[in-house]
């Protein structure tokens, strides 16, 4: 098989590990053939497939390769290719959030480099503050988020702006971040009413809005979003955060369904190198096991993957041990992120999530 037939075969697959494996095979074939341009094309596909398979560490490596290659081969690839690669460049900025080993200064330099490059392409009025907003949301930087949000809201969209659906969801994220749960829920409703969609939306949207609805006590709506969203993200390695949101919802409404959902998703969540999504899952799992303890169910039977840390062949687990494992892992990760980000934000997330259990629950139908 040639590079191009392998790539074609991959592009006919839905996003996920199989597609990514085929694209990696295409990269290998291209490298073997020594055809630089084919290697560039295959790695661009790798950027895309890795990004949508929840393996952005591979995306970053492929992007760095493409960036260097394009800088060296501008003439052959043509001026428009700068725009082509710039479309993928934005994912790099988001991916840096996942890895606490990347220092903040590097992230800020990457933002500057991105801004310089896309301004040179005549774009970026809205996109630059948009990604600054994303970084501020990740860091828990309230003032930074407010400033970036306001600049972004008055800026014009251009050909390198993020997709309209993703931008719309970022508005919902911002409302939730500022404590405006009702605004968050209203924005999500607007998105759904307009049928906004992309590869991530509304898959992640239904999960994203759950904590806001839970805090607002709007349990009927939460149930609807859970029912509509769970099948869209179940088993998808690119949706660990949404899986975590659904786990939180289930932990508050149906402990045995929550245990099944946990058993089905904890394997990848513990393996993913995208550590902020892993943190999301640890937090949700902590809520589940604190709920089980509170319900007096300390001894549990769970069917967990064999390579899971703390796996027991007899399938019997103690809720307090699982709680300690997840809460402890969440604290360690939160600390790593806060140390990198220079703000004490993630460290408070555990108590905030556990506090969801203290809210009034839905009255049984």
């Amino acid at each position, binding site marked *: 098989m040639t590079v191009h037939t392998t790539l074609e075969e991959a592009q*006919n*697959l*839905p996003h*996920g*590990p*199989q597609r990514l*494996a*085929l694209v*990696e*095979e295409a990269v*290998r074939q291209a*490298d*073997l053939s020594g055809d630089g341009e084919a290697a560039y094309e295959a790695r661009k596909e790798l950027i895309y497939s890795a990004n949508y398979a929840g393996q952005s*560490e*591979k995306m*970053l*490596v*492929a992007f*760095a*390769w493409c*960036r*260097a*290659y394009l800088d060296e081969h501008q003439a052959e690839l043509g001026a428009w290719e700068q725009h082509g690669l710039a479309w993928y460049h934005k994912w790099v900025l988001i991916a*840096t959030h996942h*890895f606490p*080993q*990347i*220092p903040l200064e*590097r992230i800020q*330099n*990457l933002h500057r*480099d991105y801004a310089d490059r896309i301004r040179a392409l005549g774009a970026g009025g809205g996109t630059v503050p948009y990604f600054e907003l994303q970084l501020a949301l990740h860091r828990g930087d309230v003032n930074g988020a407010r400033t970036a949000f306001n600049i972004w809201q008055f800026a014009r969209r251009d050909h390198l702006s993020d997709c309209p659906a993703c931008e719309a969801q970022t508005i919902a994220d911002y409302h939730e971040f500022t404590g405006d749960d009702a605004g968050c829920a209203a924005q999500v409703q607007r998105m759904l009413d307009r*049928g906004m969609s992309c590869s991530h939306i509304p898959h992640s949207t239904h999960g994203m809005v759950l904590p806001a609805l839970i805090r607002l006590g709007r349990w009927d709506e939460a149930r*609807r979003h859970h*029912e*509509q969203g769970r*099948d869209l993200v*179940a*088993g998808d390695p690119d949706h660990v955060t949404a899986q975590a949101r659904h786990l939180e919802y289930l932990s508050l409404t149906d402990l045995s369904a929550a245990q099944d959902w946990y*058993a*089905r998703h904890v*394997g990848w969540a513990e393996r993913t190198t995208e550590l902020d999504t892993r943190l999301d899952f640890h937090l949700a799992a902590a809520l589940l096991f604190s709920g089980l303890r509170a319900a007096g169910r300390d001894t549990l039977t769970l*069917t*967990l*993957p*064999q*390579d899971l840390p703390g796996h027991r*062949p*007899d*399938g019997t687990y103690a809720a307090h041990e699982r709680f300690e494992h997840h809460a402890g892992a969440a604290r360690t990760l939160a600390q790593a992120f806060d140390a990198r980000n220079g703000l004490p934000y993630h460290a408070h997330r555990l108590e905030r999530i556990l506090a969801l259990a203290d809210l009034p629950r839905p009255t049984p139908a």
Partner: protein
Amino acid sequence: MLRMTRSFAVDLRGLIDLLSEHLYAGPEVYVRELMQNGVDAIRARTDLGDAFSPALTFDVQEGRLTFTDNGVGLSPDDIHTFLATIGRSSKRGSVEFIGQFGIGLLACFLVSEEIELVSRSARGTPPVRWVGRADGSYTLLTGEDAGLPDGPVGTQITLRARPDRAAFLLPDRVAAWAAEYGALLPYPVTLGGAPLNATGAPWLDHSRGEEARRAATLAYGEALLNAPPLDFVDVNTHAGAVRGVAFILPWTPSLDARGHHRVYVRHMLLSEQEEQLTPRWAFFVKTVLDAGTLRPNAARDALRDDADLHAAREEIAGTLRDWLLRLAREQPGRLRELITLHYLSIKALAAEDDDFLTLFLPWLPFESSAGRQTLPELLERSDGELRFVADLNLYRQAAQLAAPGGPPVIHAVYTYDHTLLERYGALNPQVRVTRLSAADLVQDLAPPTPAERRATATLLAAAQDTLAPLDAGVRLSRFEPAALCAMAFPGAQRDLHRTRQAVGPSGGLWADLLDDLRDVSADTYAMDVHFNLNHPLVQRAAHLPDGPLLRRVLGMLYVQALLLGHHPLTARELELLNGGLLDLIGAALGDPDPSRPAPHLN
């Protein structure tokens, strides 16, 4: 303070253009909208308890189309209501009959400048005649006005083709569309007197006995698929009142052919490509479903995503699952046939459903170094351990190392396989399920004995010294097949290493980013090469003193291992290969000094 209330003057033409451009698939939807209005009117009349024989009638002559239904009809008040409703709401399904009627009627402006409607209500009000024009003006006459005959109950609509849309009012095309949209209507649809439908779904026709029903349904399926279906499953849900059938496909569907199901809402075709009502994993069937109480979206091309839809899908999933379970219980031979075509679909369900997985996994095939095998077959050959690889290149190497007759390695790159194996391991802790990494493969290679270690110390040191600059670590092992001199395995972060080299020392920001990502704890070399002490060449090399010749030999063996493992060569490795070959050719041609230093190695 002066208060004024005015209505907006709605530009109907603009609104229609918007609708046709953004809401509707194409102008032909006017046929569907006319029929939908007729169907709704007939149901409303039935609900009144009237005894009548429902029928929808088209007549097309020279660009003039007349559509007649004998439904409930419109009273003068109804006309006023729908005029007030037109354009007010586009939310189909949440508006009552009259409101929907008006919205449906609007679609006729897609093909006609003028719509003439003559109607008499079943409620006994006088007949009405309404003529609406695309510019928004209209004339309304009621029975009290002169000239309206006291016709039968029902509604007749007349359109005249816009010059640019004449093609949409050709009799053949209207007949084809009407036949498509109304194929499942339980009463006649005719054009110029000729019937367009078979009045009802064959699977609901029990009048001639079960055998006849089955035959008629399979014939429908054959026409649908252009091939006889393997079988069909009846669908009958409580939620959404869905009736229909799922035809078992006689072929394995390609990925893009999945999820194309034919769905009707209250007997009227909604979509040929509906993908929400049938569960995602069920791509071994093509369904034809008629939803009694589910709601369409505004464009009427898909179902509205709501709780009823979800509940109906759950029921359909349950029906298909039960059918598979019954097949497994009662006709295992047929299940085996089904699995050869549809194992992917069955794996997709098993990946979501533990009970189903437990029951079906023993039947499902996996690719392995021992060929296509089921899990029980694989387990028989592997001492209760299932070993799998989820990376293509690594699988190639693992398969190379897997001894014939020894424990096989499963190729779990395909969608679902990894999930299934992980769940299988979770449910069956007595079976070890191991995902192999390069490091695991390496562990299977036998390390040298202490005596061998002493005898090969020079070889190892020379190899390490030679290959470290190429970012390759070296080990000496014994492994089969003995014909392999050396095997090279990618390190966990090979791509990162290689890219870091490609970005170069002057890479700045990107080089720094890659350095950040480098996991120092897990980091070794880009490649690990194992020289095989079972191989005579390696054994002979172990007797050579350290020097240019030994280093050249080791370099060449390393590159050969890369080539055998289908690993891409870096520029330096390629240079090593070329230099080595030239040296060998030189030596063969009687080079005066075959052991001269090879500059590319130092």
